[in-house]
């Protein structure tokens, strides 16, 4: 991982962007629910113009339409992000009624703030369940299961509700080519929200020192077998 010269962002010149693993599961779950029960799914993101590509990816696996809260590329803090999403969802719902379920990734893969989903739930005045690994819609309620040590915590909350999900909730599908082609024709509503005054500010990024892990080559070909057996004995798996 390489930081930009000012240590305020990652050097992304050689990197591509994808949907975070948690959100990917949220998108997949939404698609599955709609496939099972009917209705409409909408994907929303706040991000620079390039984020449109991730919206298309979501639509390629079956999301019906997208909302892009476009930024000028700067980093938004969780509070501003949540406020913009609350406004956008509010505008949508005033036109066509509330979303039964709003999925968030439990935390973003980059900043890991664990905040946006909860802040939006509070802003919309809805119940929220976090860290969810299983979702079942039961009538007008949603049953959410968290993995905890030794078992599962189960919450049944009335809809509309906010659920923040974790990787492992499901196995997201690959988009098919027809899905990709359909995604190109699906609507994306673009707006540019105003950013509220940030109360949380990034000082700088630091790459943690190495964890001391290193790979050791035990050998190659059949001659490596004794060393592998010895190692397996040493770590207690043989």
């Amino acid at each position, binding site marked *: 991982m390489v930081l930009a010269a000012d240590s305020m962002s990652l050097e992304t010149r050689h990197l591509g962007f994808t949907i975070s693993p948690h959100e990917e599961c949220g998108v997949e779950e939404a698609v599955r629910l709609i496939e099972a029960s009917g209705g409409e799914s909408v994907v929303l993101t706040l991000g620079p113009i390039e984020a449109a590509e991730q919206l298309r990816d979501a639509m390629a696996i079956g999301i019906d339409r997208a909302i892009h809260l476009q930024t000028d590329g700067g980093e938004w803090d969780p509070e501003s992000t949540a406020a913009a999403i609350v406004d956008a969802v509010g505008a949508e719902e005033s036109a066509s009624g509330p979303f039964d379920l709003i999925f968030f990734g439990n935390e973003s893969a980059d900043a890991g703030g664990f905040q946006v989903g909860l802040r939006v739930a509070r802003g919309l005045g809805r119940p929220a369940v976090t860290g969810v690994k299983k979702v079942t819609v039961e009538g007008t309620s949603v049953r959410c299961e968290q993995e905890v040590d030794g078992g599962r915590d189960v919450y049944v909350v009335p809809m509309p509700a906010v659920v923040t999900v974790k990787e492992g909730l499901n196995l997201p599908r690959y988009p098919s*080519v*027809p899905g990709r082609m359909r995604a190109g024709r699906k609507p994306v509503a673009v707006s540019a929200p105003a950013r509220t005054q940030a109360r949380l500010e990034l000082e700088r990024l630091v790459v943690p020192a190495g964890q001391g892990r290193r790979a050791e080559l035990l050998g190659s070909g059949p001659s490596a077998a004794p060393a592998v057996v010895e190692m397996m004995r040493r770590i207690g798996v043989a």
Partner: protein
Amino acid sequence: MSNLPAHARAVVIGCGIVGNSVAYHLCRLGWRDVVLLDKGPLPNPGGSTGHASNFIYLVDHSKEMTALTVESVNQYKEMGVFTQSGGVEVARTKERMQELTRRMASAAAWGIEPVSLVSPAVVKDLVPFINETIILGGFYTPGVGVVDSLRAGTIMRDRAQASGALTVAAKTEVLGIDVKDGHVRCVRTTAGDIEADTVVITCGVWSPRVARMAGARIPLTPAVHQMIDVGPVPRFAGAKGDIEVPIVRDMDTNMYERQAGGDLEIGSYAHRPILYDPEDIPPIERAALSPTEFPFTQPDFELQMQHALELVPEIVGDERVGVKYAINGILSLTPDGMPVLGESPDVKGLWSAAAVWVKEGPGTGKALAEWMVHGESEIDLHSSDIARFHEHQKTRSHVRARAAEGFNKTYGIVHPSEQWASNRNVRLAPFHGRERELGAMFFEAAGWERPMWYESNAPLLEEFGDRVNRRTAEWESRWWSPLINAEHLAMRERAGLFDLSAFTIFDITGPGALGAVQAVTLRQMDVPAGRNVYTPVLSPSGGFKSDLTIMRLGDEHFRVVTGGAAGMSDKKWFADHLPADGTAQLFDMTSAMTTIGLWGPRARDILAAATADDVSNEGFKFGACRTIDVDTVRVLASRISYVGDLGWELYVPIDQGLKLWDMLWEAGRPFGMAACGIGVYGTTGRLEKCYRAHGNELETEYNVVEAGMQAPRVKSEDFVGREAHLRHREEAPAAVLCTLTVDDHKSKSGEKRYMLGREPILRRDGAPVVDRKGRRSYVTSAGAGPSVGKHILMSYLPPEHATLGGELSVQYMGERYPVTVAVVGSTPLFDPENTRIRS
């Protein structure tokens, strides 16, 4: 930690398919103390080999490329890493079906068998998931296959290491290459320095960067090739191997579809050209995937998905089949589409094997190793020679412009005379404006804009009427005009004025000059000053390295004149053979001099009208060269001819070229002189005289005796290729260069067709003609002979077919046309006694 030796016979930088192959073949040919480095890990250091699609089609219109590919396949097979799958190139359009008949011809010319043109139904049998309703047919090559290029690299590396001749160092980055006195001396790496006089850059897309460390240039650009992998494909469930179904090339959409185990791989050369600079390639620790796998840019692939869906709807249209993997793979493109091989003209001892793809990797490695060890390769590599580039062709702008233009032609239907559109008007003759006024159709040669014909000569069409052969078929009419034939007739009857600015000219001077030119030329150069000598330049094995003209301007002053295409590699060849003691120097005069050709029965009248000097036959004999005054311009006139008529090449300083042109133009007016394009000079005039051309008839794969160019005696002075040449004179030639004429041009449709060159020569019954060295007979040059009223072909024929009046055929666009051997050897078809040029 470092196992690097302090000295090496050669250091090969880059462990892709090419580097492994070069290192292996160097060791196989007897070199020891070879070091192979890569900054990445093994077996996949992260270059383009690691993400290659790894399939190999055999037939290319380029003989050189086909030969390298076939040799590579043989090596892959020997290593046990080749899986034959067959491959079918499908046509969606009529134009493509015609192109596939051209591929059939190339296959026959280069000896690739079996191949066949197949119907949509047969394609469907071969590739059951294809939508055969949108194709018109296919070109099927059963010998197509897929290789494991990483495994092949490992095998070659291991073999060379086992022989004790090779040291391999992975994760070892080159930090610098030291050059002293124009020669590489040392490679500095993160694991220590290695002294070496020979360094090979096989770094794929990084090559320009590494070359720059030595102050040399490798003109290539990294470019994107998009590839997606979809699966799991239900039909391929339980697939036992990587590939069981023939690979499909969807030629008209610039795409391919191939099975990859349980998945289908879809690749494209159809998207917009996406070029990078070598500096944009990330180091391995910063790369998202590997350094040469860039994040996929979906918007560039939208149309390609549609095309794939059309052709293989069963798989691509299946909602259960997902896009599992998608990359912008980075590969190397060059300004002319050919690899960059050989010793750098910038730095001695620095070799390049770059812009080489997996399909030709091992063959290229072998050829380069032969070149390094023996001084030449078995396969003639002149189209790939790094020394071929002129200065402007090495600039970033030129490389990018041409690479971008060429990218979408990867599967294109490219006419043999097709001109580049980008970066034109780089080199202009001083009389370019005059030519423009005359309606010149400019073709490019070595960056020069050369008139191919002049639209203002339209009245000649009427004048010569039926003697001007016309063409109706679109393909042969493309990049061609009947005006070429009309200009030819005007020259033969009166006179023609030619722009020869594209010549490459260099002077060799000094006390050692005579020895320097003698050392590389077949003919005797110790002639009196004021003589010009046309001479082959031989390779060590006695093949044709080049052919050119040398004027002796003084005891210690020789002027070498050669074509634009071979000019830079010829210059390197002469420079490499200059005496080590510094007694001879080479000066490039190309941009100092310009050349005008004046030929035809009235040429003397015209020149005499422009000069007071003696230009009579007695006063200015054929083969003489000397300075004359044309008004106020001092002109080096050389009596010589490549078109078979009386006349001169006139050399002047480039600043006075326009004045000379204008004076000759005025002098020629009363004699009906025409401006003539290179169509006459390079094709019609030359072919009627059976004059050979480098790159066509003259290649290292053929020798002087086979070309019918042996002189009665061989000079006693030593020269490159002498021993081999003496041997060739003692043995019966395996083939003899012949001139053939086409007996009947009528195709089945009734339309007359005219071959353009590179077609196979077959027996009348369609059987191939093969010489005892295994070489197929093919048309080396083709063109009209307006004065002999025939379409002329040249071809090497084995002795049993090289008989006057011998009946053969030529395969063109899927049909065979009868041809007859009109000349065996080098006697001209037109004016066989050469009375015209000597008159």
